């Protein structure tokens, strides 16, 4: 199968690979770059486990092709953990036990960080609505809502 040279700035570092046009961004990240923190859950854009950030916007890594990300900035859970950007949410998720098996957690955190950035005054109901594109089978969501709410509260208090 023909491949196309593709360069993506992954967590701040340009990565060049020849990829098949049909390769999904999530498979590029996991298989070609070895960043296995973002997970594959449903492969049709429903569960949110593969959520990553492209040029600052959260996207489903299973609904975007790697070649579409050519020349763009992609941030994953690994990079955003190392940069410290997610630290407050990670701390709150830990304290509230807002994760069990942890498979949804990287995607959940990226969605939550987008909420923190774009909806700083979100109510509990708005948090539930915003996060409802990310499936979690373990927690029942209550603790996730608590954790996100705690981060928003702390920001408002600061």
């Amino acid at each position, binding site marked *: 199968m023909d491949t196309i040279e593709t360069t993506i700035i992954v967590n701040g570092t340009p990565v060049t690979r020849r990829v098949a046009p*049909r390769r999904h961004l999530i498979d590029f990240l996991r298989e070609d770059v070895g960043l296995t923190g973002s997970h594959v859950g*449903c492969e049709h854009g429903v569960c949110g486990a593969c959520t990553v950030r492209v040029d600052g916007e959260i996207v489903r890594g299973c609904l975007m092709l790697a070649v579409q990300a050519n020349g763009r900035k992609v941030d994953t*859970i690994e990079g955003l*953990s190392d940069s410290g950007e997610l630290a407050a949410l990670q701390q709150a998720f830990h304290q509230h*036990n807002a994760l*069990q098996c942890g498979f949804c957690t990287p995607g959940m955190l990226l969605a939550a960080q987008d909420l923190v950035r774009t909806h700083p005054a979100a109510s509990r109901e708005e948090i*539930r609505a915003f996060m*409802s594109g990310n499936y979690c089978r373990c927690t029942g969501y209550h603790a996730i809502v608590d954790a996100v709410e705690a981060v928003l509260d702390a920001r408002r208090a600061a």
Partner: protein
Amino acid sequence: MNARAELPLHAPGTQTDKGYIGQSVPRPNAKRMLQGRGSFVDDLRLPRLAHVVFFRSPYAHARLRRLDLSQAARQPGVVACFDGRAVAEYCKPWVAVLAHLKGIKSAPQYAIAIERACWQGEAVAAIVAESREQGEDALAHVAAEWEELPAVTDMEDALSNRYVIHPELGDNICFKREVDTGGVDEAFAKADLVVEDTFGFGRHTGVCLETRSILADYNAAEHSLTVYHATQAPHMMQDIFSRHLGIPEANVRVICKDVGGSYGIKVHVYPDEMATAAISVMLRRPVKFVADRMESFLTDIHAREHRAKVRLACTRDGRILAFDLDDLTAIGPYSVYPRTSGIEGNQVVNLTGGPYRHQQYRARLHVVFTNKNVTCQYRAVGHPIAVALTEGIVELAARKLGIDPVEFRRRNLIPDDAYPYSFPSGIKFERLSHHKSLDKLLELMDYPALRAEQAALRARGVHRGIGFAALIEVTGPSPAFYGVGGARISAQDGATLRLEPTGMITCMCSVTEQGQGTEGIFAQIAASAVGVTMEKVRVLTGDTGVTPYGGGTWASRGAAIGGEAVLQAGRALRSNILDVAAAILGLDKAELDIVANEVVNKLTLEPKLPLAELGRIAYFRPDTLPPKFQSELTVTRHYTPREYGFSFTNGIHASYVEVDVDTGFVRLLKHWAVDDSGTVINPMLVDEQVRGGVVQGIGAALFEECVYDENGQLLNGTMADYLVPMSGEMPDIVVGHVETPTRQSELGAKGAGEAGTAGAPGAVMNAINDALAPLGARVTVQPFTPERILKALGKV
């Protein structure tokens, strides 16, 4: 926080500090998940790894007249193609029966079906390729010629034996059971009120976010197999790989790293996973299979397809006299190995009517084969059915008598001082707390205020309902669950604790972790038992090459059984450490204790020796110790519950809902759950087990169903079509605890994993029916979709 940790914990009359027991400590092992640094099967990279994909039957029941893999074998990257016969040379088939389920039968099941497929999605060929994409591409080049056979998809049709799926079995009945205490007809004859209803339950599934995953790595030189497996029961799988692949058990190692949700889905033997292991042996290289989402819906075990008629007899003043149950359930074409598919129905028979004190009970159960995907044990096995049946008919009786449902339960719940107690189905309760739990629930929910609000809103055309569900839960099972039936499934578990030279504690336990927090509570127990702070403890689970032998995680057994093993090992290690300290210090052991990582004087708490120094001496300078003294700083202890078959727990739920009578939509306003799981080791983790369980139960009640057409075709095999609960629709869930420790163990913990899932569907159903009652409508078939509610209201 970690002062003295004298045990037994919770012994009556003692005032000792419990260390970390009872503290909401965050789970140490959650940190890697928060950074995407977990290690799931699909994250592993091995040299020469090949990928296997499966060619699956498009029909529910069909004979494979011809299968031609030659074109597929020529596709780019394809390593090998195998049919069922080829794989059967390396993997023996199985028949899933248990001796204590008398009369249960099933047909031999192969890793890859030979000649005939019995459900849509059953694998009939495997393609191995250098990449998964290449394997999937090659699937399009498999040539198969099928002859469709009659598909049995309806339970009643199966029971009629009009068409028998496995002719050699004689009929479609996998298992049947009858229980009769006697006196049931007499009780119904003398009853003031008899209520009867039929309840339906939609077949649904676990929808683990991580799909089933296995990576098998055969080493031909050693004739050994290492399997990286998303499983709940590594030792069970070690035994099964060994026996079915003909590899000595000692040469099979099962490693279970992080598991992305399981809920019972990952405790069974799946033919495609057995085929993957066999193919690794055949090809002498590592082979990986990761199910895609469609394969998950088609082949992960389903559960809970039941239709049950239940009758209740009671007196005018609301005293329940008897229950009479007739349950029919369909399990697909095979009983699932090795736990069988008879257990769920068996549990329904055991548990129906469970919280109440009637003495007459009769039940009939039929478990039938159909041409749909197999069903087996999924979280709360049988409980959601039994609880909904019981609580649905109980609230109907209360309504007919004009007695408040809380008051009706008060009159019938087994009194808290009646234990030990034998229930008419034959099960035994050590000690339950139904009345105390009901008190706690009412206090949490402010019942009178809710009723007042309901009435006020009703007057304005807003239809809200309040529903309850009391429950009993099977936890911490003894060998009575599987072992007595001949299954090589361990009911005992072990823990090894080792003091490291640095004063750290390593804890290795045979119970596994899939996110429940098992490793976290083991760290709490180990730290408390030894006398160290929690950051000194490292916990290892999920590796048959490392941990003691044990059952793993299922039936809410991790804390109750594994926790007790850790406690006993911790106490033994503490004693051994004090022996070393006494030898080093030349003091009497009885004068010494361990507090916060130091050996101290027991009375004055004066520090005597840090554990790091003790470790240094014991490991590197034992020459300085008395000549005959040998330190033993690694200990192993095991635990098996024996006196009771199961460590029953109890709980009660309430649901508050609003039904939109124009659209049929149900809005969940709030949910309350009170759970008595004995000693609570970590309240936060128990709360989260209950909450997660409640939401799985809500999924069953409102959304989830594997919908098949009459030809046995699954109509909703994607996450876009199969609805699961998402955060937007879910209510806040208030959790309360009552603690009635089991006296069977010194820890006193029982299980907590299933109570949420057990109670929620019944409570939601009762709440919906409470909302609908004034409109003369009632629903009894789950999931309670808008369509079903509108039909009940006569609007469609």
